[in-house]
């Protein structure tokens, strides 16, 4: 036959290369499999989370699968991944949802399959969960609102209470970003000298942040401070500000404490960032999964401490 031979061969070749990886999983029947689904693997934050989770999984004797869609905004793809993992009969599902409300149907399916769900870093919307009659076992994460507030207070201190501030929001509807914004805005509201002149979303992406910041600078060339809901965006903004020659004038605060951001802070190009400790989140998530497998009950909330890095 004509078309199929090559197509089939190439597809099989791809699969064959992955067979060794999967064989390990099914042969070692002793190791239970758990899954971690993050927002995207294009973000250092989640790569760190994966590392922490892997270390814990290895030491506890668990098989860990980590999957993610390409972009943080892709809820549908994340749903599909969760559905497929449910078919895979993973024992515990650890999830960082791309859509706090949208992912609920997937949680419902997990509940039906008797797979406990652990949410990490970003909560699933409580009201939607309740309406659907679904439950999650626990939430592991930082208080993002607190973190935003901390960032705001730092900015006030740094600028002496007088500044024109630009804000880079995250993905609209993402509970994490929304919480950080809430905290930050509370701090701004409490300090009368702080003026928020611009607030725009950049979807947690670096190049979008670059463009949005450039545009903000056009409209408000005299800003003296910038808060970004995550470091990825802060770094993009940093480059736009440097390109405009305003590096010295603007204090930039990010969130997540990625390596690149830490470097920028030591080089005095960025003012500060809020460290969440994704590695610890990953570790805790796997430990919790292990405890759930053993039949223990866990607390509904497991906060992970945040700190300011400056």
């Amino acid at each position, binding site marked *: 036959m004509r078309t199929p031979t090559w197509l089939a061969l190439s597809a099989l070749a791809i699969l064959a290369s992955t067979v060794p990886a999967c064989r390990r999983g099914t042969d070692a029947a002793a190791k239970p499999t758990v899954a971690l689904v993050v927002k995207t693997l294009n973000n250092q934050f989640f790569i760190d989370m994966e590392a922490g989770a892997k270390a814990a999984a290895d030491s506890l004797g668990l098989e860990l699968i980590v999957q993610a869609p390409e972009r943080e905004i892709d809820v549908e793809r994340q749903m599909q991944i969760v559905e497929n993992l449910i078919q895979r009969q993973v024992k515990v599902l650890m999830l960082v949802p791309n*859509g706090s409300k949208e992912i609920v149907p997937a949680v419902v399916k997990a509940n039906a399959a008797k797979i406990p769900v652990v949410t990490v870093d970003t909560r699933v919307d409580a009201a939607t969960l309740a309406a659907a009659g679904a439950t999650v076992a626990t939430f592991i994460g930082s208080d993002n609102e607190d973190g935003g507030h901390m960032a705001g207070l730092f900015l006030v201190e740094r600028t002496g209470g007088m500044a024109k501030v630009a804000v880079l929001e995250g993905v609209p509807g993402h509970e994490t970003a929304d919480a950080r914004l809430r905290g930050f805005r509370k701090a701004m509201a409490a300090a009368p000298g702080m003026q928020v002149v611009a607030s725009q979303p950049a979807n947690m992406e670096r190049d979008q942040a670059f463009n949005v910041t450039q545009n903000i600078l056009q409209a408000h060339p005299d800003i003296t401070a910038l808060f970004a809901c995550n470091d990825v965006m802060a770094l993009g903004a940093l480059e736009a500000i440097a390109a405009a020659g305003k590096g010295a004038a603007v204090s930039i605060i990010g969130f997540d404490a990625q390596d690149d951001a830490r470097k920028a802070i030591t080089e005095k190009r960025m003012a500060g960032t809020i460290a969440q400790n994704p590695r610890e989140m990953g570790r805790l998530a796997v430990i919790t999964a292990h405890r759930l497998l053993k039949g223990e009950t866990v607390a509904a909330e497991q906060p992970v401490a945040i700190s300011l890095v400056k």
Partner: protein
Amino acid sequence: MVTRTHWRHVVAGREAGTLLGLAALCLGLWIATPFFATAANLANVAEQSVIVGVIGIGMTCVILIGGIDLSVGSLVGLAGVVVGTALQRGMPVAIAVLLGLAAGVVAGALNGVMITAGRLPPFIATLGMMSVARGAALLLSDGRPISGFPDSLRLLATGRVFGIPAPVVLMLSLYAIAYFVLTRTVFGRYLYAIGGNEEATALAGVNVRQQKVVTYALSGLSAAICALLLVARLNSAQPVAGIGYELDAIAAVVIGGTSLLGGSGSVIGTLIGALIMSVLRNGLNLLGVSSYLQQVAIGVVIIAAVLIDMALRRRVHRST
């Protein structure tokens, strides 16, 4: 609507090759993991192919006439937001749905007009619409997703017809209609003729402009239907929904054997192409393959499909 002639057509035609590719893929996965060939997983796979599948119908028609539609992803976002906004303003479900579908049809027709009367190349026209529609969606929704849709609408995702998930039933019905239209009606014949040689078809007295506008409107309609399905599934209309869907749809059409030059191809091939893509993704998820490698895999399949298609064409040409 599966008659004996239908099967003979499929078996003898180019779709046979793609079908065999799908079968080989499924066979490979069946061997590689025990989780693939379960009823529940296969139902999932079918459901997961609906989004790309439905858009693929409109995209197949557009590619058949030698055009392309890059705006479908944005139209998915726009139509969903239109439905959501309409419901927020208190309109009844039926009206909201109609408005969403109308948004897709109108945008698609606009594409068609830009291409015929405006003489813009389809690539450029639909690229422009891609931005405009996305912007309109963001404007209309103020950038925030709209959630909380009535149960009647959600049935589109959660309902079952004789045990088969409603979206799958919808997709298969749409494909059956499309197949029928493309092979048996005057409209369908005109599509193939225009794709094969536009000048000769115009000379034969066919109103090529009208055909083109209708075809692009159809593409917009299929994007709008997809939006409804997505909204029902996620219970949320995101203005950023659908980003990248146009490329997936084109991939499905190409894998399915339809030529990007127009004039030859079949909508059944697109269905198989969409299935191949979801089976591949599903399999790679089940095997725990790195997400990065999944992107590579899809790309390899697309390239392989086009290479094979080109090689086949050359062989056909040389022997005649």
